[in-house]
């Protein structure tokens, strides 16, 4: 499942082994999600799923759900 895999990425980036994310998780619900974390998330997600996001896509990520949808779209291509 994409969300489970993405959870591993989040745990790595946030340095929190027990972190559990949902599709609605965003910057306001996850402490420490700022621009530095966002860049690291995008970069680690791309590495983990072996995809490359466009700038426009990155700008549209508002929550984990958006990220999951974008990953799905790339994996289907």
């Amino acid at each position, binding site marked *: 499942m994409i969300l489970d895999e993405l959870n591993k990425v989040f745990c790595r980036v946030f*340095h929190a082994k027990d972190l559990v994310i949902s599709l609605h998780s965003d910057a306001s619900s996850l402490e*420490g999600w*700022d*621009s*530095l974390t966002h*860049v690291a998330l995008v*970069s680690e997600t791309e590495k983990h799923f072996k995809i490359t996001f466009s*700038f426009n896509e*990155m*700008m549209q990520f508002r929550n984990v759900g958006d990220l999951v949808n974008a990953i799905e779209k790339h994996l289907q291509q």
Partner: protein
Amino acid sequence: MHFLSVPFLCFLPVAGLLSCFLPFKQRWKLLLIVSLLFIGLWNPGAMLVLLLSSLFTFYTGLLIEQNRKFRAGVYLLSVTIQVLSLFLLKYVESGSTGLHFLFHEAGFRLDLILYAAGFSFYTLQHIGYITEIYYLRSEPEKNPLDFLLFSSFFAKFSSGPLEQAPQLIAQFRKPSTDLTLIYEGIQRVVLGIFKKMVLADRLSPAVAHVFEAGQGQGSAITVAGACLFTVQLYFDFSAYSDMAIGSAKIFGIRLTENFDRPFLSTSVSEFWRRWHISLISWFSNYIYYPLVFRLRRYKGASVLAGILVTFLLSGLWHGLGFTFFIWSLLHICFLCFESLTKNIRLNASRRFPTFIYKPFSTLITFLLICFSNLFFRAPDITVAKQLFLQLQGPLFLSKGFMEGFLSILAGGGYQEVLFNFYLTLMFTGGFLIFEKHLSKPLLPGRGLFLRTFFLVTLIFVCGIFKQAEYFIYQQF
């Protein structure tokens, strides 16, 4: 026309009334006429520049969409022209006599053209507009009048907030029919007038004393001056934003909020999410994030590079003076430090109780901002250096210190000046404490009536009328 002038304060209700008689879908025509009149009566040269700039940007947008082959070239050329003209404006403002002479010989009144009011604000919006089209995030407007209204909309013309064309134009075509917006708009305009006349302008003499009085002041005065200026700047600029947002609401248009109680920030990065929000969003969307994204493989270094470039450009946008450069360098240092120590600070916030950590962080953040504003406000580098050296003096608390301290800030110690200073401090402190309640929009009723009555009475009894002091951000 300035917001705080009799013509504008008469013009606004008359235009608002006229708009009530028009069908909602026709109101944009009135808004366009009213906006062009607002600018034209203020500065005909500014209107000419605005028309040219708007037409240029409008047709560039169409060209970028229609011409796939050369779209990058058109986009880059358009951005270059806009950025160069911004740079020229700042260069001319900084007093370059050489440039004046060159244009004067060619028969050009450079100052009339480039001192065009609102130029730096709407130019940024134009750059944002064509960038959105280039990145295929939005489509160009097809109606030049719609775009002209977006550029010239009187409420946001001279000092923002910076808006996105599609969202605003959609509102022009279909303004809100919610009548409570009119009440909200009026409340907001009154609040803006109060903040400007009763708070910002009353702080101005004390700030001027510190920054213009010359040598021989102690560190306490300098610190107080920096704090008072920071608060004055906030009241001045947020007052303008209140009047802009309030004026727009009267016509059923919602503009972006520009401030979110910035003095509650617990970090400098949080401060920049609460201060001049629309400008920082612009820099984030078009400078910071594109740069950070492209350098993302360098992880933390990409963020530091993003901060460096964004704030250097922000400093340049504010002015070409060395003081603005130091101001932006300071913020770069603060933000880089925060970025590098993020985890340490996060751990500290978890270790210490909130009632200790949060006020401490808020105080430190406020002092850092005040320190940077010493350079923002100083008229030149000599004064900035002198103020910086004064900070290093002893924070003397000798006998008579308070009288000496206050009398300098109050302008020499005359009784009425001291009285005014204490009153100003009381208003300032009171407002900052109750800001959330005073800014909350109220529905028509006794509460709204009493609050508005109270604010208007204070404006007449304590507001500064004599100073023809323009809003500080209009100089940018």
